[in-house]
């Protein structure tokens, strides 16, 4: 492998990771509280989950395309890509937070209330710890998907490993395609493995 390629690969991998981390941080920061809110406000469930579901259903390239003409959040570049990736990651986090908390044994929840826990104590000491494995599974799915989808972000000038793949396809250069595809696949596998390790730690606790 030529040295210039290795250097670019390092740089694009870094860009890719930043893109994913920023998107996931925003998606989690929005998705977890929203998921908790959905357990408390039944009326919001259908509209919010519906919105997240529609976002997830739009093909990724099309979603990037839709966002370009929108002012402030759209245009060409990283910002648009992050908006799209966040919208994508939202559904699994939202859905699993909701499912995890609703899945807490009714007798356990009733005991917690009857023992005189406040709403906050119920959430932090009972619901979230017991829902943690399910919530983590949602974050895991979202992260792995985002690593994959982020390769397409290169199409709107957001950088990342997709740059190699698109350029390799355009110039019929297998080396470049693989220089993008292999690190992207490795990133996905590594994060999946990392999450599965964390999940094991959490569920034995």
């Amino acid at each position: 492998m030529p040295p210039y390629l290795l250097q670019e690969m390092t740089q694009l991998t870094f860009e890719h990771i930043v893109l994913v981390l920023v998107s996931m941080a925003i998606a989690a920061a929005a998705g977890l509280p929203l998921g908790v809110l959905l357990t408390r406000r039944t009326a919001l469930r259908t509209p919010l989950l519906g919105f997240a579901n529609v976002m997830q259903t739009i093909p990724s390239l099309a979603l990037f395309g839709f966002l370009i003409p929108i002012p402030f959040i759209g245009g060409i570049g990283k910002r648009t890509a992050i908006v799209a990736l966040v919208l994508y990651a939202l559904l699994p986090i939202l859905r699993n937070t909701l499912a995890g908390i609703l899945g807490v044994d009714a007798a356990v929840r009733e005991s917690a209330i009857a023992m005189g826990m406040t709403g906050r104590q119920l959430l932090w000491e009972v619901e979230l710890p017991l829902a943690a494995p399910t919530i983590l599974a949602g974050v895991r799915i979202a992260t792995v998907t985002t690593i994959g989808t982020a390769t397409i972000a290169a199409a709107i000038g957001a950088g990342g490993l997709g740059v190699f793949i698109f350029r390799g396809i355009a110039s019929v250069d297998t080396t470049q395609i693989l220089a993008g595809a292999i690190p992207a696949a490795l990133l996905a596998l590594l994060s999946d493995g990392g999450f599965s390790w964390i999940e094991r730690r959490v569920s034995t606790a």
Partner: protein
Amino acid sequence: MGGSLSQAAALEFRGVSYRIGGNLVLDNLNLRIESGRTLVLLGRSGSGKTTALKMLNGLLFPSSGDVLVEDRATTSWDLIELRRSIGYVIQEVGLFPHFTIGENVALVPRLKGWPPDRIAARVAELLEQVGLEPAKFLDRYPRQLSGGQRQRVGVARALAAEPKLLLFDEPFGALDPVTRVELQDQFLALRDRLHKTSIFVTHDVREALRLGTEIALLCRGRLEVLTTPDEFVRSNGPEACAFMATL
């Protein structure tokens, strides 16, 4: 605000009805329990006995009428304070699976802000009282215990913060007959030693006769009889007879 229960926790249902959907679950229930007594709410499934129980610790509120704890309507109590001064034991036990046995029993004292050494001493004392060796059980998790042991922990948890009032919702219903009798014996021993006001929900007339100082028989949301176990055996209402026929 606040104010915990004094030694004398008398309870009263005053014209209490509870409606859910089109159903009248409780129909003008009037009933008073003096402090230190053990009232058994007896009835079939759907008779409203659990609903009545859950009104005492503010898990449910009457559609009309008042439920009074210490002569104060539950609607005017600080609910968190009220619940922390009432022990609650349910059939499903409801131990926190991610807490150790020690942490489960320590819950209400911790919520009430007891100092750690007092909590530790109390937890050990209680486990001893319900027949579970503290050294052996303190650090175990609920899933490592048998059903009977879990329910003993449930009773210990309910007693932890020295409540003046204890609520039991078919606590021994899911246990095998031998364990059930053991736990009933333990209940009687605790009852005679602690003199706490207790409300005990069951559909088992044998259990009702054994444990209650009073029995209130509920039928379709109405109070049919309120009497002592001795009198209950002689009562001739239709529902009472139906229950006596199960003996």
